[in-house]
């Protein structure tokens, strides 16, 4: 599960599933600037990452810099594997 491409695809798929307006999200889409994330979807996303990749996410890590795009989310998850 530490294959980066696979992680990226799983996150992308989940972010797109968050709401119907997110269909066009790509790996580098700015999720914050485009308003793709709100408090509801951020907590859903955190729950997904925790369950899917069996990682722990501290409150202090739930900040824009980590959640800005599928790419930053992938890097964030990858860093927790190593």
């Amino acid at each position, binding site marked *: 599960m530490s294959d980066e491409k696979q992680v990226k695809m799983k996150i992308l798929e989940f972010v797109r599933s968050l709401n119907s307006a997110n269909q066009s999200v790509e790996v580098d889409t700015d999720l914050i600037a485009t308003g793709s*994330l709100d*408090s509801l979807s951020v907590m859903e996303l955190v729950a997904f990452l925790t369950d899917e990749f069996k990682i722990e996410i501290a*409150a202090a890590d739930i900040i824009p810099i980590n959640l800005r795009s599928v790419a930053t989310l992938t890097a964030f998850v990858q860093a927790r594997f190593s």
Partner: protein
Amino acid sequence: MLLHEVISGPLVDRRNKPAVISEGVSISYAELSQRACAQMTRLQDIGLTTGDRIGVIARKSPDVIAAFLGAARAGITYAPLDTEASPPYWAMALEDFKISHVLSDIPGLADKLDSICVHDVTLETEPDARAIEQYVPIPSANRMPHGDAYILTTSGSTGRPKGVLLSHRNALAFVDWAAHETALGPNDTLLSVAPFHFDLSVFDIYGGLSRGARIVLAPSTATTFPGQLIEAIELHRVTVLYTVPTVLRILLEADAFAHGAGQSLRSIIYAGEPFAPQPLAQLMRALPNATFFNFFGPTETNVCLAHRFTGPPDPAQEIPIGGPACGATIKLVNDAGEEVAKGDIGQILVDGPTVMKGYLKADGFVRAQRPYPTGDFARQGADGTYYFRGRRDQQVKVRGARVELGSVENALLHVDGVKEAAAFVVGNDLVAFVAGDLALDTQMLGNICTKSLPPGAVPRKIVALSLLPRLSNGKLDLAQLKTMATERS
């Protein structure tokens, strides 16, 4: 006293102490006063005078607070609008409130608002240092405590914004009461989370400034990213937090108070919606040094009832909204307007110094009814404490039976694991949404409703989510919930 005069005391005692902290920059009381003076001069330079109005569509900043103070001092009424709203919404509100000048930090706003003069809220030149010395109240017959201070907006049932016009006296009656109730002082640091178009910010700004405290402006994204909130709380050793239950729930959900974080908090105040007993008790356990308050009241009356918790709520009991606040007189009445017997449910009627002047609507000013009917229902317990029982627009008919949506939500909120609940009618059916623990069993919830509610009040469908969708002011996004209910039925 007028609103801008709240800083007169701190301006003497705490002149060079921090007043507002934003994005790592701290502004002292002297600097804030200076900027307020410069803002006042600017407003007068663009031709505004006592009795005029100014719109403010800008993200939180010390300059916005200075503009509020400067406007108040010049006798100009300010109207902060939701920065997340759309240009057509702003245009409608500005038209109805008869506003032709706006202070903003949104690039290109002028192109989106025809016939409105848009000015950059931030002043290009630093204010003249001598300006501060001129910061003394100018006596004027037109600037009396009952004069207009600011306009907040509520969404009317038609979708057209309604302006709630409040006076200096309205605001200060609340500010003085709230600062006293929470024992605010110069050693306090408030975290301003609520946007400025939302009335919780009146406490943050004027409560904080009146007592010489520090006001930390949370980043606009902080309610979405709990990491930013807890970082601000820790970094600035925040002592007082006034927010909506959703924000507190998100902090809990993210386990933000783990490892001793947040222990500087000594007062937590929530308002805007009911807080389920379970997460509230959980929060109280996480922050044992904090005193918890529930402030209650619509924008039209600001806070009219308040409760100070002496311990975690009993999950088997209703959560109290306390007793009269801000010098308000409270009455519970039936549909005929007669006072109900003690213990019976009635609509909350409020009279007192915080009741608004009236509404600004498309067709003009409508003076507030006194006492003001809130549309909220409550019951008074034997000890005099009031308990919230839902809203008037939450009384619905389902297949002929009258159902109090609040009672359905209450039944669900008292189930272990349920942290949020919302009930409403879709078509002919009662639908409920719940949020809380991941594995909420909706069938089990249905069974509990069957046991605790009259048959007509049992939801036909219960949907579990991880969090309920919210609007930018933290209130439930009913429109989105209704769409979801239709999609899922």
